[in-house]
């Protein structure tokens, strides 16, 4: 398998040197900075990683990925409020989104839905959740002892505690390290998945799903699996967010949240794992800085960034930077490789000879 890894270059090379360096810096960060904001950035980074994994390597773009972020958050809040202890809540917050995603994914992928329509369905699902949660004000809407709270959401639930010891909550610097640990674990899991045969097949699916099926692989099953894994990670991020924010609101399911994570991934670099993480950290920081003033609206800046990235920086920030490095004496990045990254959906269909639009009905 290691030999194969050397041969399989299209999954991207991991620059372990850089990654370990960054990791050490992150470990030492609390010595210099207050951990409150970095914790949030780490949570967002995990959320972005979950989308980047599925989108960059399997070609699955969800327009409503916030649905699973929100599900994780709400599941955690409701479960911990009912049980008083966080361990089961944590597990449930990861498993429930994964399960829901498996159902929705199966419905979409086995139904051979095209990419645009998949965008609609994923969008609609998150909208349904957002609207529903927004309308659950009043005592009638509660699960166990947790009132869903409508627009105001659910406050005052137990935050994460040391497993088995409900009297020791995890917050502040401890929470920062938990988030960092989760991010690292999920990153390593993603790396591992991508270097496995399963991951290679995903790359093939991204490139040409019809051909992969003609090689005997059950593509919908693979897509459902990665969709579910991605949702699990998003759910984990949501759960961590709930513990950090100490309140969960319907905005977590919202369109804004879904769009933001898409922008983080695409600006950071689709087709890499570190790209989404970096995109989330940089743009998240910018959002927080802009939030502190009212002169320039955050929408304006982030909108402009999205437009510019799509038009000018097709590969995203990280691959572009890596490309500049490579121009100075390292192996050149294959253009076809990055071009395939750009094929986010609609264009892929053209590869199998645009049958849908052939209206003449003539076949040979």
């Amino acid at each position, binding site marked *: 398998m290691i030999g194969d890894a050397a041969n399989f270059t299209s999954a991207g090379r991991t620059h372990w040197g850089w990654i370990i360096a960054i990791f050490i810096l992150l470990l030492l960060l609390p010595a210099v900075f207050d951990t409150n904001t970095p914790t949030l950035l780490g949570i967002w980074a995990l959320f972005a990683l979950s989308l980047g994994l599925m989108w960059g390597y399997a070609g699955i773009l969800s327009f409503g990925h916030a649905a699973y972020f929100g599900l994780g958050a709400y599941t955690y809040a409701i479960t911990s409020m009912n049980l008083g202890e966080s361990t089961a809540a944590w597990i449930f917050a990861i498993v429930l989104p994964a399960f829901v995603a498996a159902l929705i994914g199966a419905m979409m992928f086995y139904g051979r839905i095209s990419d645009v329509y998949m965008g609609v369905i994923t969008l609609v699902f998150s909208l349904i959740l957002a609207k529903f949660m927004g309308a659950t004000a009043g005592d009638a809407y509660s699960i166990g002892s947790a009132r869903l709270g409508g627009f105001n959401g659910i406050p005052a639930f137990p935050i994460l505690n040391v497993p088995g010891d409900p009297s020791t909550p995890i917050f502040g610097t401890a929470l920062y390290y938990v988030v960092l640990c989760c991010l690292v674990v999920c990153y390593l899991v993603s790396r591992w998945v991508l270097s496995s045969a399963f991951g290679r097949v995903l790359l093939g699916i991204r490139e040409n799903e019809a051909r992969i099926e003609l090689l005997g692989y059950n593509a919908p099953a693979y897509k459902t699996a990665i969709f579910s894994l991605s949702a699990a990670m998003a759910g984990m991020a949501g759960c961590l967010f709930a513990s950090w924010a100490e309140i969960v609101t319907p905005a977590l399911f919202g369109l804004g949240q879904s769009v933001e994570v898409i922008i983080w991934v695409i600006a950071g670099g689709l087709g890499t794992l570190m790209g989404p993480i970096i995109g989330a950290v940089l743009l998240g920081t910018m959002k927080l800085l802009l939030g502190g003033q009212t002169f320039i609206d955050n929408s*304006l800046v982030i909108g402009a960034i999205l437009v510019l990235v799509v038009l000018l920086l097709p590969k995203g920030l990280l691959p572009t930077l890596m490309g500049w490095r490579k121009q100075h004496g390292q192996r050149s990045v294959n253009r076809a490789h990055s071009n395939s990254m750009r094929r986010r959906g609609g264009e892929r269909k053209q590869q199998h000879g645009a049958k849908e639009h052939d209206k003449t009905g003539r076949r040979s």
Partner: protein
Amino acid sequence: MWVETRTFQRVEMDYAAVVFLEIIYMIAFLALTSAGLAVVFGMMRVINLAHGEFVMIGGYTTIACAKAGVNVYFAMLVVSPLVVGILGLLVERLVVRQLYGRMIDTMLATWGLSLLMVGIVTFIFGNTAVSVPAPIPGYELGEFQMGGYNLFIIGIATLLILCMWLVMRFTRLGLVARGAMQSADVASSLGYDPKRVYMWTFTVGAALSGLAGGVLAPLTGLLPSSGGAYIAKAFITVITGGAAVITGTLSSSVIFGTINQVVSFGSTPVIGEIIMLAFAVVLLRLMPQGITGRFFRNAP
């Protein structure tokens, strides 16, 4: 007792009329707000996610004009479409044109534009709601108070659909448009530069969105974020409708409008919306090419 029964029947009939009108209104509302998006999607296979903001800007234009003393009908029927049409032209030339064939990229870029526009409008007009009073007063239908302006909206929507249909069927412009829908080559072979056809299509689509925004402006207070409310429903209506511009939009508007209102009447508006959304998912799952991908395939 005989008198009471008569009164009860009349109230029931009035209620039925109200429900009916509300359904028609919802259909008209969906059709009106989706028309611009449908034209662009049906003709160019471009999904313009800034459509909601086009509508919003149409609304702001009308309100600004009305406040400046311009006749409100003139503002909503002439000025708004003009202003937003020009905006659409700019967007097409600067952004959309670079991304033809890249559907998802177009969605992302236009989404960026929508955020940008919200930011700019917030910058100019601030974040408090602006509004203009409805020029047509309410009326009474038996025991019920009805919005008179809603009838105007229904009228405009009907007129719009009719005009679009007439243009598509009976004018050379419509012929070229239908040809371009099939493929760019058809437009070329008819002697028209496909790039220009697309440019004007996008402009017209934007103008329609502006018109919708202008017409809907008197309904509620307008905020820079109002566009968001329009885009989701319009997006779903258009995609579910399928590639045919008029028939698709009409059929999905009818389906969704009816479901939304009927369920709303049975329970709450939120449930109505949720059921409508869920139904959209089911429909798309069953008809992945949209309604007019399966039925009415060759309709305009």
